């Protein structure tokens, strides 16, 4: 039984740069995954605006009947301009690279896994001299290490 359905990485401007699904359920075609990525990017930004308390950096966990979505955003980012129709205002906001996993409801320790994936990204994607920033990730070493990390996580889950 797969605990993790899929993993997404979206760049600072909301484009999907990495998508992978695990297991047989919860698969998506390319169009749908792109749609999820851009939707999530906007929802994340809107949540920062909606927060009544200052210092909100966006949604970290979304819980639904059939899945949980855990999101981690890096601290690095560009300023993007967002236009809000309701207030008719343009607002500046910091948008970092976002990593998120969609998993079974109640799956534990996803923050740790996302943090680890971020480390793998810095090691095997950013350090690859032929990787261009903000472009789709096609790095074999990253794939290999990612698969290992997810598998380890699965074994740890079974052992628990």
């Amino acid at each position, binding site marked *: 039984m797969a605990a993790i359905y899929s993993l997404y990485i979206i760049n600072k401007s909301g484009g999907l740069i990495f998508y992978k699904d695990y297991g047989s359920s919860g698969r998506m075609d390319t169009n749908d995954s792109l749609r999820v990525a851009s939707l999530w990017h906007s929802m994340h930004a809107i949540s920062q605006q909606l927060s009544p308390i*200052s*210092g909100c950096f966006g949604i970290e966990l979304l819980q639904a009947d059939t899945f949980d979505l855990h999101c981690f955003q*890096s*601290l*690095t*980012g560009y*300023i993007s301009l967002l236009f809000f129709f309701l207030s008719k*205002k*343009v*607002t*500046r*906001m*910091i948008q970092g*690279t976002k990593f998120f996993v969609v998993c079974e409801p109640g799956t534990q*320790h996803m*923050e*740790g896994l996302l*943090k680890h994936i*971020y*480390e793998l*990204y*810095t*090691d095997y994607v*950013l*350090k690859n001299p032929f990787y261009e*920033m903000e472009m789709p990730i096609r790095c074999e070493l990253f794939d290999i290490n990612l698969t290992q990390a997810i598998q380890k996580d699965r074994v740890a889950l079974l052992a628990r």
Partner: protein
Amino acid sequence: MPPVGPRSGDAIFANVERVNAELFTLTYGAIVRQLLTDLEEVEEVNKQLDQMGYNIGIRLIDEFLAKSNVSRCVDFKETAEVIAKIGFKMFLGVTASVTNWDADGTCCSIVLEDNPLVDFVELPDTCQGLYYCNILSGVVRGALEMVSMKTEISWIRDMLRGDDAFELQVKLLKQVPEEYPYKDDE
């Protein structure tokens, strides 16, 4: 579970894979030498080193944040301390100190007593205008830019020019606010 709170520079340095220090020093030397041959003008080499450092910095910052568990700094003073104490230790294996703050806390100096890049270097007369370690200033500039701080960085003291330490002056030009209130309608 990952440890809570920032890790010390020593702890991270001990845990990452490293290359032989001499290989590193010699490789950097070879790059500078090649740039001098290709570009001929010392001033151009300084510029190129800075640009190379910048390109490294904008990627390196993510690794730094991922491995050090440092979260948002409250002010520029804390940022400078983090760079000197954790950043330099983590990537170069040396510790730097922060001094010479100006009154409004936007300009300071990072002083390096020890610098592995220059272990075998003597500047010849023909290269007197060369900032041999200019790549470092580029790295710091690039890294800070990715966390929305525009800075200007210059060398104040350079051991290769007969000073007693390396001193990098870091001047904060513009910091983009990350929290409310945003300055709207700009």
